[in-house]
């Protein structure tokens, strides 16, 4: 098992390297750089800037050098000094901008994931065991509805409900009172009371998908001979169900963590703009518009890291759950 973990961790190193290179190239792909984007923006506001100043800035930021040199400056800064570079747009170090948002993103994502599991797991089991029952059709209907409704629409509806009937402040993760306050129990409570909207909005699609996955997995397992044989040994239905087929059907369920986590992070951009959530999505979008390359690059790099970690976690869970993977 230890060998398995170490091997998986070692595989992550070349993977991260490849991702960082690809990330950097993609960011460099649009014509121009941050300064041309800035010039264009200023020109659209009928302001001009001295080309000499632009050239000076370009030299100072190293934007006139080939991408390999720029990449090396960026990646060596990260590896050697933990310096993710400077955000041109905000004129601040990238690391100052991202940590608060990254951590809130993680909180929202993990909460959503737990919500998704907690809802999808029992409903999925029910749908499979009582296949074609009224309850199964009900779950299937709302599952497809959840998949079909665009997240931003659901967000708008829930915001309306929350503001109109529950009297909560609309949008964001905090009430105005707590936005700049230091962390306290009251602030945590405020976060929790605001969290349910993004969690439901972000979670519905994945919940619906996981219900279908759990149902299909379990239906495959329910009629397997080992279930029948366990029943022939006198086990009660509920004990039988939870110990054998559900346990085996859990494998694909667990492996979904790998894709649900990054999906939640990247799929939240539109929703977090609608809900004005202080998480990474909107900031990343702006950074990409402004060609603020170090900020955008760092975000994408960290999200890729999250994806790799999510995959690693799901692989470890799988190995723990299934002896065939562990020993195979």
């Amino acid at each position, binding site marked *: 098992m230890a060998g398995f973990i170490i091997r998986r961790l070692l595989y992550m190193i070349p993977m991260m390297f490849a991702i960082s290179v690809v990330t950097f190239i993609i960011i460099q792909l649009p014509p121009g750089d941050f300064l041309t984007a800035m010039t264009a923006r200023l020109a659209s506001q009928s302001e001009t800037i001295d080309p000499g100043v632009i050239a000076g800035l370009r030299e100072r930021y190293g934007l006139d050098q080939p991408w390999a040199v720029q990449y090396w400056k960026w990646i060596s800064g990260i590896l050697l000094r933990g310096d993710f570079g400077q955000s041109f747009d905000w004129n601040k170090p990238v690391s100052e901008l991202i940590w608060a948002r990254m951590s809130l993103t993680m909180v929202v994502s993990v909460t959503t994931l737990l919500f998704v599991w907690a809802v999808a797991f029992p409903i999925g089991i029910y749908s499979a065991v009582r296949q074609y029952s009224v309850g199964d059709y009900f779950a299937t209907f709302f599952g497809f509805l959840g998949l079909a409704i665009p997240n931003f629409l659901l967000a708008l509806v829930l915001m309306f409900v929350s503001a109109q009937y529950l009297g909560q402040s609309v949008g964001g993760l905090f009430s105005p009172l707590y936005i700049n306050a230091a962390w306290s129990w009251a602030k945590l409570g405020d976060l929790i009371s605001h969290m349910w909207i993004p969690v439901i909005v972000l979670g519905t699609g994945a919940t619906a998908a996981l219900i279908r996955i759990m149902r299909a997995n379990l239906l495959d397992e329910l*009629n*397997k*001979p*080992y279930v*029948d*044989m*366990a*029943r*022939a*040994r*006198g*086990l*009660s*239905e509920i004990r039988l169900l939870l*110990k*054998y087929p559900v*346990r*085996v059907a859990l494998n694909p369920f667990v492996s979904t963590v790998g894709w649900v986590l990054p999906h939640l992070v990247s799929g939240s951009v539109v929703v977090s703009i609608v809900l004005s959530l202080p998480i990474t999505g909107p900031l990343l979008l702006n950074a990409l518009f402004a060609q603020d390359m170090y900020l955008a690059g760092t975000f994408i790099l960290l999200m890729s890291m999250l994806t790799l970690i999510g995959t690693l976690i799901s692989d470890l869970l799988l190995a723990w*759950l*299934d*002896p*065939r993977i562990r*020993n195979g």
Partner: protein
Amino acid sequence: MLQIPMNTDPDFAMAGGRLAERDLLIEVDDLRTHFFGGAGSIRAVDGVSFSIPRGKTVCVVGESGSGKSITGRSILNQVPRGGRIVSGAIRYRPDPAAPAIDLASLDPRGRDMRAIRGAQIGLISQEPMAALSPVHTIGNQMMEVIRLHLKMGKKEAREHAIETLALVGIPRPAERMDSYAFQFSGGMRQRVCIALALACRPKLLIADEPTTALDVTTQANILDLLGSLQAEFGLSVLFVTHDLGVVAEIADEVVVMYVGRVVEAGDVDTIFHAPAHPYTKALLQSVPRMHGQPTERLAIIEGMVPSRFARPQGCSFHPRCKQARAGLCDQRDPQSVGIGDGHVVSCLLYEGGQ
């Protein structure tokens, strides 16, 4: 074999002239197990009667779709989804002195039936590859059934499990307790399945084609093992198979089934040496003979097993039967008639005293 005087009582003749005081563990009486689905109901088991004497092996033989497996499952009152026992009785007499329990009348999911499954009636199946959980150790599954029925502590249950694994010929049983199913070969897996079925020392083992998926050498080993376990525990075995070679080797009594009904039943010598029903005769002729001519063609039974939805009128076998008589076999349903010592045949040729 003891010769019994012919009994003229009609009920007695129906039961094949069996001695009333024979020590029977199971008596299946006019069992009907039907499946209900969108395309109409299927009468998988359609009025089957036979019995299993204590400590003996009864083989149920028949082609695919003859209802032999469902008959076995019905005794466990564990019919696959969509099916249920609609009528008939399965009288189970664990104690010869006590009154019988009718298994068919118990709730299939109820506590009484579950207390019998695994504890008093064990099941092994034809798929040793798939019959064990892929993600639990052998020990986990062994101890589960032992602790469920025998009320043992953990340590005691573990010892009992190891002892049972040793009994079925698993080498180094204490170590193998922590192994998973995929770490065993096919034959070894079937041994583990037998250990699971016999862990609580049941009175009856239902073996549903247990050797079908195994190669011939392993098959012989498993049959030997079953024989020795039977002798050791006084176990009754209901052996479901389509392999007449296996039947000849292990059976005390044989029940031949065709499309959900018993066409002939009797002791193994009678069935093999003096078969009465045309179907049984045809089955036996289709088996290759050791001293036959190499150029000789094997006899075949013309036609196909009839569809479960369109059972022919009259005797189900008449469209394929060489001795069928028009106007009789395609009109009347044959009844079981006793034609000798425990020998029952369900054929119109034998009705009316032929």
